[in-house]
């Protein structure tokens, strides 16, 4: 874990300055939270809502680390269906399929209807685009959208941004967003009030989790630069098949579990491949996530749910 328990001085001073502009900050367990007061409240949500995150479902995986990845995927769907209150929508942070085999995207989409949630927002993982450079994924999940699959939307006073950092993988390289997407992001958030809570979701972590294994987005810092002025930024990633959290200023980073197989902690194995664990403990290291936003509390509550 590279979680930081404190707030650096610069971050703290920035927040203090904000108290004069309508936001009251508190520090709780190293994670900043704020309460909107006065005029800022008008731009906030009026009701609490939650959404769910599922990640790295790897439809088609049949390796030793999980001989029945479809069964654990189904268990994850049941887990989401049981969430109360019902999530407003679902976010899939990529690696929908394992080998991009024919029909795999359909299997995932059909099965996810079992959650009872009408809307799922997707971003691709490298396993969804490696075989054809993203043609099928973009055709199915991003048709009619400008750019190459990136998106943003507003829900309940929160601004959501889905970024794509797996389409420009190069030899020796890492996750990357690219100039066109960065310019789009800068424009996308430029008109928002700094008190708007922002949720960013993307497959590969936007922070340097472990560059030796490619667990980093090389231009992620630039993207985060456009979000620095916001009082509450929550970054949700997948890719590394394990939970990690990091707090940096007003940005909270979370990586998610997979529903298919776990991966080793950074540097804990010779390579980042699927990690074999005793069968009886497998479901305990797979899972889904519920995220709740409450008006007046800019810190989003993140609850991890294992499949055990």
């Amino acid at each position, binding site marked *: 874990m590279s979680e930081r328990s404190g707030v650096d001085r610069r971050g703290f001073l920035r927040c203090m300055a904000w108290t004069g502009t309508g936001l009251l900050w508190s520090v709780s367990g190293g994670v900043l939270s704020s309460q909107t007061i006065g005029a800022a409240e008008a731009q906030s949500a009026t009701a609490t809502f939650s959404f769910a995150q599922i990640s790295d479902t790897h439809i088609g995986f*049949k*390796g*030793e*680390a999980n001989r029945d990845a479809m069964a654990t995927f189904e268990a994850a769907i049941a887990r989401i269906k049981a969430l109360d209150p019902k999530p407003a929508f679902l976010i899939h942070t990529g690696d929908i399929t*394992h*080998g*991009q085999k024919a029909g795999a995207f359909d299997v995932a989409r059909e099965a996810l209807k079992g959650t009872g949630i009408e809307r799922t927002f997707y971003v691709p993982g*490298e*396993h969804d685009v*490696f*075989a054809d450079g993203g043609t099928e994924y973009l055709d199915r999940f991003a048709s009619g959208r400008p750019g190459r699959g990136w998106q943003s939307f507003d829900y309940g006073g929160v601004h959501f941004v889905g970024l794509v950092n797996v389409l420009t*993988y*190069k*030899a*020796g*390289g*890492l996750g990357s967003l690219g100039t066109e997407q960065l310019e789009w992001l800068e424009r996308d958030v430029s008109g928002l009030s700094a008190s708007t809570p922002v949720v960013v979701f993307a497959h590969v972590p936007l922070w340097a989790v472990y560059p*030796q*294994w*490619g667990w980093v987005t090389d231009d992620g810092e630039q993207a985060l630069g456009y979000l620095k002025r916001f009082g509450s930024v929550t970054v949700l990633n997948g890719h590394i098949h394990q939970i990690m959290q990091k707090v940096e200023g007003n940005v909270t980073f979370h990586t998610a579990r997979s529903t298919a197989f776990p991966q080793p902690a950074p540097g804990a194995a*010779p*390579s*980042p*491949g*699927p990690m*074999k664990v005793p069968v009886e403990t497998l479901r305990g290291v797979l899972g889904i996530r519920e995220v709740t936003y409450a008006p007046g509390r800019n810190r989003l509550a993140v609850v991890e749910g294992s499949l055990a």
Partner: protein
Amino acid sequence: MKASKPMIVAVVTVAALLLATGKPASAQETGARIEIKAHSFETPELTVPTGTTVTWINHDDDSHTVTSTANVFRSPGLDTDETYAYTFTRPGTYEYYCTLHPMMTGKVIVRSPS
């Protein structure tokens, strides 16, 4: 799965070698293997004569690809124990990587037989 057209070229090349030298060319003389293990190409740099068919075999639990950086060859996703073969008919340096794990890189250097 296998690159069928280059394979035909390899057969022709072997036939030409037979004609030129009068000696039978065994499959071993025109074949080479690269093992994929623990997220790496075990022979990251391999030098072979033209006409060599290189076969990559994936021993990992994870999928990998063998993809030329210059788009000369491109394997599908290789699951555990799956192989991909490509026959190199022209001299040159062929760099490749795994599109799923771009940290994994390798090169095949192809030389004309002297």
